[in-house]
C-alpha cells in the first residue's frame, strides 16, 4: 500500500487524505458493483428463468448492459415534485437511505488486511447504522403528500422496526460464539474453530447457528422489503407505496439503494455465518486472502442473494398484521431461545 502511495506522499499530500479518498472511492465501487451484478444476475435473469422467459436481451450481449440503459433512462427523466410535498425532506429521503447503505459497506472485511476500517464494534456499528434507512423511508412516505405514499411509509415504519429485533438477536448468537464484535475476528474464529479437536478446516457458524441463520435470512428479507414482506411497496394495492411520487434520478437512487442494501446484507450474512473471505484448508493469516478474499466474499454474497431473490419470486406477500405477528410472536422468541442455548453451550464447553 505504501509503495503505491509514495509518489503522492512525495508531492506532499497527507497520507490520511489519500487513504480516505481511496476508501470512499473503493467503497462506492463496492457498493455499486454488487448492486449492478445482483440486479442483472438475479432480477433480470434468474427471475426471468424461473418464469420461463428470457429477460432483457437487447442491451449488450445477453442484456448485460440493461442496467446501464436503465440508468440513462432514469437520469433523463423529469424530476417531479408534487405540489404539496415538503421539498427538502422529499429531496433528501433517497440520500439518507443511500448513506446508510454506504456506511454499512465500510465495515465489510475483504481480507485479513483488506478492510476499510477495522472497528472493534464492527457488527454493532453495522446494525445501528442500518436503522437509518428507516428514517429515509419514513421521510419519503410522509413528505410525498400522497395517501398511497403515506400508507406505504407507515407500513414500512412498522415492519422495519419490528424486524430489527430478530435481526439483532440472531446476530447476537454469532457474537456470543465468536466472543467478539469485530468482523475480522469473527471470520478468524470461524477459520480456527476446532470440531472435536480437528482444527484443519475450521467451521462456518452456520453449522451451529442454523436457527440464527434462518432468522437472519427472514429478517433481512423483511428489512429489504422484498416479497413476502413487501407490504410497504405492495405494487397491486398502493402502487409503489412510499416510492409512488418519486421519478427520475431519485427513483433510481432508491432502486440502487434497494439492491445495494441486498448485496451488503448478504455480504454481512456471509461474513457472520459462512466464513466471509476465508476458504477452508488455507491459513487465515495468509497474504493470499488479501487478493482473493474480496472475490470469495463476493461469491458467498451472490449465494445468499440467490436465496433472497428465490424467495422473492416464489411467495405471495404477507398482510401487515400477519407480518407483525410473525416478527413478534415467532421470530423474537426463537431468537431468544437461540441466544439462551448458545450461551449455555458456550459456558459449558
Amino acid at each position: 500500500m505504501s509503495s503505491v502511495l509514495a509518489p503522492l506522499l512525495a508531492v506532499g499530500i497527507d497520507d490520511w487524505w489519500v487513504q480516505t479518498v481511496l476508501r470512499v472511492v473503493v467503497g462506492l465501487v463496492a457498493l455499486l458493483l454488487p448492486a449492478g451484478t445482483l440486479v442483472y444476475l438475479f432480477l433480470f435473469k434468474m427471475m426471468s428463468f424461473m418464469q420461463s422467459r428470457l429477460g432483457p436481451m437487447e442491451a449488450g450481449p445477453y442484456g448485460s448492459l440493461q442496467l446501464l440503459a436503465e440508468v440513462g433512462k432514469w437520469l433523463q427523466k423529469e424530476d417531479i415534485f408534487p405540489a404539496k410535498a415538503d421539498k427538502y425532506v422529499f429531496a433528501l429521503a433517497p440520500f439518507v437511505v443511500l448513506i446508510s447503505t454506504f456506511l454499512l459497506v465500510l465495515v465489510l472485511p475483504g481480507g485479513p488486511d483488506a478492510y476499510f476500517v477495522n472497528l472493534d464494534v464492527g457488527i454493532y456499528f453495522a446494525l445501528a447504522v442500518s436503522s437509518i434507512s428507516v428514517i429515509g423511508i419514513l421521510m419519503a412516505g410522509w413528505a410525498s403528500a400522497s395517501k398511497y405514499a403515506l400508507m406505504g411509509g407507515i407500513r414500512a415504519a412498522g415492519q422495519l422496526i419490528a424486524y430489527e429485533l430478530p435481526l439483532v438477536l440472531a446476530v447476537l448468537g454469532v457474537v456470543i460464539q465468536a466472543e467478539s464484535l469485530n468482523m475480522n475476528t469473527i471470520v478468524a474464529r470461524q477459520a480456527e474453530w476446532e470440531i472435536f479437536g480437528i482444527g484443519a478446516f475450521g467451521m462456518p457458524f452456520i453449522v451451529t447457528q442454523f436457527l440464527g441463520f434462518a432468522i437472519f435470512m427472514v429478517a433481512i428479507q423483511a428489512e429489504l422489503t422484498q416479497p413476502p414482506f413487501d407490504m410497504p411497496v405492495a405494487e397491486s394495492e398502493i402502487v409503489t407505496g412510499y416510492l409512488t411520487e418519486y421519478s427520475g434520478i431519485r427513483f433510481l437512487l432508491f432502486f440502487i439503494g434497494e439492491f445495494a442494501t441486498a448485496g451488503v446484507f448478504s455480504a454481512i450474512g456471509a461474513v457472520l455465518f459462512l466464513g466471509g473471505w476465508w476458504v477452508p484448508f488455507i491459513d487465515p493469516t495468509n497474504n493470499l486472502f488479501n487478493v482473493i478474499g474480496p472475490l470469495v466474499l463476493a461469491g458467498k454474497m451472490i449465494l445468499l442473494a440467490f436465496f433472497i431473490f428465490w424467495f422473492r419470486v416464489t411467495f405471495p406477500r404477507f398482510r401487515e398484521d400477519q407480518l407483525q405477528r410473525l416478527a413478534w410472536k415467532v421470530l423474537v422468541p426463537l431468537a431468544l431461545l437461540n441466544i439462551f442455548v448458545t450461551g449455555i453451550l458456550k459456558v459449558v464447553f
Partner: protein
Amino acid sequence: MTDTLDPRTGGPTGPRPIIESTVSSQEQMRYIGQQAADARLNVEIETEGMTLNMGPQHPATHGTLRLVAKLDGEQVVSAEPIMGYMHRGYEKLTEVRTYPQVTTLVNRIDWLGSFANEVPFILAAEQLMEIEAPPRAKWIRTILFELSRISNIALFLGDMGVQLGAVTPVFLAFRDREFVLNQVEAVTGGRFHPNFDRIGGIKDDLPAGWIEETKAVMVKMRAFCDELETLLMGNEIFQARCRGIGVIPPAVAQEYGLSGANLRASGVDWDMRRDNNYGMAYDECDWKVWTHPDGDSYARYWVRLQETREATHIVDQLLDSMPSGPIMAKVPRIIKVPAGEAYVATENPLGAMGYYIVSQGELTPFRVKIRSASFSNMSVSPWVLKGVFVPDIITILASLYFILGDIDR
C-alpha cells in the same frame, strides 16, 4: 376540608388532602379502562376517516373500475364501486347491426373467454328461428366454449397470484394459455376474437390434426393446474391471506345475484350447463360440478381450479366422441329472425351470461339486453368489503374476478 383558594389558579392552596380509596385496584383499573374506551369512542366519532380512491387507473382493478373506500386507519368503513368508465354502448350498437355483425361485436364483451360471449346470443336467435344446429356443430361449439373457459380461468389463476404478490404464476398462466389460444386460432383464425358461431351451426370445420393437438394441449393444461396447486394454493402465506377473507354466505350470494364459480364457492349447487343445457353437448359427457362450503376467497380460487381441470376432461371426452356430419343447418342466405322474444343464458367462464333478444322480423334485432355476470358479481362488493383491511380489498376483488368489458359493456 376547605382550603383557601389560590388567587392565580382559582384552585386550592397548600398540601392536598389524601383520600383513602374504598375501591379495589382491579375495579379501579376496569373503571379507568372504561373511561379510556369511552374517550376513544368519542374521539372516533369525531375524527374523519381517509377516503381512498382506488381510481380508474390502478394496478389491482382489471381495467377501469373505480372503488371509493372510506378508511379508518387500515380498515374499510364503506366501499362503493363506480362502474361505467368503459361503457361502449353495446346494446344500442346491436340495434343497427345485422345478426352476423352483432356476433362479431359481442366477442369483445368478455375478451378473455371470447367465444363464450357469442354462444348465448346465437342460441337465443336459433330459438326464435326454431332451428337446431346439427350434432357436429353442437360438439364443436361446446369444445370451443370449454376452451374459452380454460383460457379465461387460467388467467384468473395466475392473476390472483399477482394481486397477492406472487409474481410467478401469472407468467406461467400466460405461457400455458398460449397453447389454448393457438388451438383456437388454428380453427377460427383469431386468437382473441374467434367470430366463429353462426345461427344454425358454426362457420367452418376442424382442420386435420386438430383433435390430436388439442388433446396434447389438455395434458399441458392439467400439468399447469398441478403446478399452480403446488406453487400457489399449497403455500401457507396464500392460505393465510385467503382463508376466511370475504366470506359470502349462500343466502347473501343468491340475493345479490352472484353466479358462476362465486356462487358455487359459497356452497350453492347451481350450474346452468347441467340444469339448463340448451343447444350444447354437455349431457353427452360425464362431468362433475364442484362446490365448496366455505364461501371465502380460497374457496373461489379452489372451485375455479377444479373447474379448469374438469373443463379439460370435458374437452377430452367430446373430442373422443365427435360425430361426423354437416356443421350448418339449412338457413337462408339473408337471415331475418322472425318476430318474438327469447332469452338464453349460459354458464360462461365469469358466471351466468344471458341475451334477451326482442326481434321484429327485421335484419337487425330490435333490442338486445345483455345480462353480464361481472356486473352482478360486483354488486356484492359494498356488502363484502365492509370492515376488511386494505390488503383484503385486493384479495376479495381478485377472487370475485370480474372483467371490465363484462361489467360495463
